[in-house]
């Protein structure tokens, strides 16, 4: 009984369709992980309100599709809204809190998250709106006997392009160099002439652009935009970046991909009777990994601990 259940599970998990869907979810979560990891690197701040940026972008898309604006205009509006909100957040909340304890900053972004969510609730109501202009991307194409939705392929390709562009920016430009320096040691970097405000603005803007990309991808898959849009994904990505390791952008990104992939796999392969316990399973895995490797799954060596 258990053995046959297990073979079914493994069979389902190896299915091409499940695999590609899981990679698609992993790609979305990895993009969010980059956004969160980038801001954490420069400011030592975990931005819980990141999901609400995506929610705001999704509402912008829904707003545009309500008025039958062309797709391009909708996407431009989405980017504009998310980038403006990111800038405002950085100026009003992040900058004054620079240097505060991680707990204070996290709770402050918690407050911002609830603020944005409750404004959306007041404005659009609990049922939200629908963004339909890109829904045709949801149609499946057949590849190797599996029905793959076009959006999954678009998501994976877009995520790959974004990551390549980001790596190029970080490694080939001087602002990228400044950001990496600030992430390693912000005090020394400032002494050497790295402008803290510029670096934090740029990192928040890049994170915002990634949030806008994720908003476009997610609204295609889930066209109903509610005030709690992307909340599940935010919880997943926060667990993912810590599981991967917050100290480096690469390990945080890998952690995000890893948790997205695993939960996509489990969601696709679990029999429906057990699938309601999927969150418990994922969270259980998170606890297990954290106990074994508290500094992160993809980090090298152990963090320094002051010892007597």
């Amino acid at each position: 009984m258990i053995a046959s259940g297990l073979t079914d599970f493994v069979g389902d998990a190896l299915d091409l369709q499940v695999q590609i869907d899981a990679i698609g979810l992993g790609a979305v979560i990895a993009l969010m992980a980059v956004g969160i990891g980038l801001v954490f690197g420069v400011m030592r701040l975990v931005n819980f309100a990141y999901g609400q940026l995506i929610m705001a972008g999704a509402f912008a898309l829904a707003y545009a599709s309500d008025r039958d604006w062309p797709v391009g205009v909708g996407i431009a509006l989405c980017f504009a809204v998310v980038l403006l909100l990111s800038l405002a957040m950085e100026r009003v909340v992040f900058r004054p809190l620079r240097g505060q304890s991680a707990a204070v900053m996290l709770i402050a972004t918690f407050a911002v998250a609830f603020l944005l969510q409750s404004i959306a609730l007041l404005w659009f109501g609990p049922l939200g709106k629908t963004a339909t202009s890109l829904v045709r991307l949801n149609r499946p194409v057949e590849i190797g006997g599996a029905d793959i939705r076009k959006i999954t392929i678009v998501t994976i390709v877009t995520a790959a392009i974004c990551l390549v562009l980001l790596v190029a920016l970080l490694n080939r430009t001087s602002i990228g160099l400044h950001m990496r320096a600030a992430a390693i040691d912000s005090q020394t970097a400032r002494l050497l002439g790295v402008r803290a405000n510029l670096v934090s603005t740029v990192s928040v803007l890049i994170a915002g652009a990634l949030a806008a990309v994720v908003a476009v991808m997610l609204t295609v898959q889930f066209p109903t935009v509610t005030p709690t849009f992307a909340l599940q994904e935010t919880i997943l990505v926060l667990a993912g970046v810590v599981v991967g390791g917050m100290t480096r952008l690469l390990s945080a990104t890998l952690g995000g991909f890893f948790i997205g992939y695993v939960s996509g796999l489990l969601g696709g392969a679990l029999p429906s009777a057990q699938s309601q316990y999927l969150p418990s399973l994922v969270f259980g895995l998170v606890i297990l990994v954290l106990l074994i490797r508290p500094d992160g799954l993809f980090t090298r060596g152990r963090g320094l601990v002051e010892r007597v």
Partner: protein
Amino acid sequence: MRTRRAAVELLGPALLVVAAGIVGALVSQTNQIYFITALISVATVVAIYVFVGNSGVLSFGHISFFAVGVWAAGVLSVPEAEKPATMPYLFDFLSSTTVGNVPSLLIAAAVGGVFAFLVGLPLMRLSGLAAGIATFAVLGITNNILRYYEKIGPGLNTFSSVPETTDLVQATVGAMLVIFAAFAYQRSRLGRQLRAAREDPAAARAVGVSIYRQRLMSFALSGFLAGFAGGLYIHFIPINIDAVYLDLTFITLAMLVIGGTTSLWGAVVGALFVSGLDSVLAEMEDGMTLLGRTIDLPSGSRIVVVSAVMALVLIVRPSGLTGGRELSLPKLRTAVAK
């Protein structure tokens, strides 16, 4: 001198709670609900403070101890005759047992404490962000299981027909008990060791403090008190399990941080301040007459204002309204200086 300072440290929070209780007794029946809610918030926030404040480790998991308190007190105190209707799939021993008000509160506390102890056994080795996410994972698992496992409770349905025994007196006494426990703990040897470890882990280890053991004990006590607060809550208002999840985690942590994380006084002030603000705004949503003018906010705007105020307080006063210090009388301080 020392005892006087200790007396102020305890009497400040205690008097504030008693004052809230007395004012609550004077206002109308409908407004009394706000005061009971505020007093239960005090109990909850002080319970969280016992761990977070004394250890300096952020925990997102305390609402799961509150939730098992809600569950234990709720499922056990529904009258036996009503159980088949609301919770048809219940295990036999749960459906055939019904307990009264006080035993159910004690059981809620015990369940919260034992759960926290068991969870803490592995998790108290972690600190920093890893601890935050791991405790959050505990919250997610607790919510997920209580939500779908209908053999132990009503699942997503509301806990209906729980006797509503938490009145103003019980809420006041409950909040006082939690404050006394928190006070006794933080002045004990154990509490002082943990606070020392919060300030300087290496130095605390050097004088022989086992940080793991101190954190674990504080976590268990904190879970015990949170479970008790959960019991108080379910005896006050019928709720379903999703009412004790993310929103409550956010609002209680915000109360603690706004008041000042590192002091009992801060926990009590933060809980009463945010509850008070929330109540006034709730009244305004229903239309309130103030100085001859009617203020009528659209419904849903209160959480907008509350979260904006929270962000503002954190930006202007990151260490909270009380600065994270215990209450002390200014006169006493100058006397010492002389």
